[in-house]
């Protein structure tokens, strides 16, 4: 796959290295000459240009890219790169980085963004996940479907502890996708019981998150 990444900072270059390891073709674009550190990711193609300008994107042959990642530290630039990638070059998948949580609401399909990744939100979700027991924590949101991945660590007094998974009436559009127990991943089956200390991972629609939280808190569906 050919992937173009706008912004060759720490985020852009580490994504580039990861993608190259997985066998993809990567083009890194940055407008700052000091960011062009070819030695840091020698296998990538590098382009010194402003990714917000049509001429640069023409030069980058953006129409040949299956994925464009707008990973600069400037949310405005990320929005414009996403819009141009989608509308002018028909890039099938556009991923954009959100730097400032206040700007999160802008990153949607009207700007050509298929997947938005919010660095501050991810960080706070991970911290919350690490410290909270018994509360539903949203780990990430799948933009296109308005579904999210949520997590709950079963507290000692969890009402659902000991219940058979098949007996629990989960809210509509909710799937228990994995149980993390003692460092192992358990793929849930109907006959498995839930235990205290289990980390439950759900994919659920945003509408029923509250319902799911209530069920997990009081044990009644």
């Amino acid at each position, binding site marked *: 796959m050919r992937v173009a990444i706008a912004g060759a900072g720490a985020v852009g270059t580490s994504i580039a290295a990861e993608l190259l390891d997985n066998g993809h073709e990567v083009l890194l674009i940055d407008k700052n000459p000091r960011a062009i550190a070819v030695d840091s990711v020698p296998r990538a193609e590098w382009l010194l240009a402003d990714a*917000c*300008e049509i*001429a640069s994107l023409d030069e980058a042959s953006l129409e040949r890219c299956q994925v464009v990642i707008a990973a600069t530290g400037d949310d*405005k630039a990320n929005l*414009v790169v996403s819009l*141009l990638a989608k509308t002018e070059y028909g890039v099938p998948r556009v991923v954009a980085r959100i730097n400032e949580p206040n700007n999160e609401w*802008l990153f949607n399909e009207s700007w050509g963004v298929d997947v938005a990744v919010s660095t501050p939100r991810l960080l706070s979700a991970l911290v919350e996940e690490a410290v909270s027991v018994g509360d539903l924590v949203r780990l990430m949101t799948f933009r296109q479907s308005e579904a999210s991945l949520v997590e709950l660590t079963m507290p000692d007094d969890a009402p659902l502890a000991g219940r058979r998974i098949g007996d629990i009436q989960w809210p509509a559009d909710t799937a228990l996708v994995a149980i993390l127990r003692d460092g192992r991943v358990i793929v849930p089956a109907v006959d498995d019981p839930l235990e205290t200390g289990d980390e439950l991972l759900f994919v659920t629609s945003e509408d029923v998150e509250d319902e799911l939280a209530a069920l997990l808190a009081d044990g009644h569906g």
Partner: protein
Amino acid sequence: MLLVFSWREYPGRPSHLVRTGNTVGGHISHALAGTVLIQGAVVHIVIMGCGRVGSTLAHILEDQGHSVAVIDQDRDAFRKLGSTFKGKKITGIGFDQNVLSEAGIEHADAFAAVSSGDNSNVIAARVARESFGVKRVAARIYDPRRAEVYQRLGIPTVATVRWTADQMLRRLLPEGSEPLWRDPTGAVVLADVAYGEDWVGEKTSAVEEAARARVAFLSRLGEVVMPGPGTVLQEGDVLHMIALEGDLERISAALSSRAPGGKASKGGR
């Protein structure tokens, strides 16, 4: 919306002065001017960017009795407004919802994005229009190629660089105007011709009759439309005509000041 009421209050006034819509390129200044032409109707206008253009706009609009709010990231920029400016000054990012709310975007009739950043301008203009429903918005865009793209996407832009370059060319070249194409004899030209809003919805054949020249093609949403017997001029179309160069001025005059069918102008210059 306020503009609609003002039309009702002044039934004798030409409707095209209050019609809102997808004004593009050089037409936007006319669209904003259209707003202020409605006498007695006070409109609220939000301006993002308090540079030379922003502060000039703010003063002109305020002098005409409208209410104005100016947004700029830099508090010092408001000094350009001087001490006579009565409107609101808001320090902040122009596409921030809270900042826009503070500027009264919910009841604004128009929004001008004239900060020094192309990206800020286009984002703010889209937010004003799509999130807050402001009908008349315009973004000043320096980069001519991006301005074209945004215009095609329906974001009204004022492409300063292209416009300035064209204006310079017109003064530098002996012909005075810069047609798209000129035949080898130099007599026949292909040129963009501006037209009054009254022509929207009229057949190109009517345009040809009034202009006494041929319509070569229309540029519509980035595509070329070849005129046929039933082709109708739509809002935002760029009209390209083939004409004798010496006739261009007369043609422009015929299409800007005269309504279809040769009636006198409804615009009342």
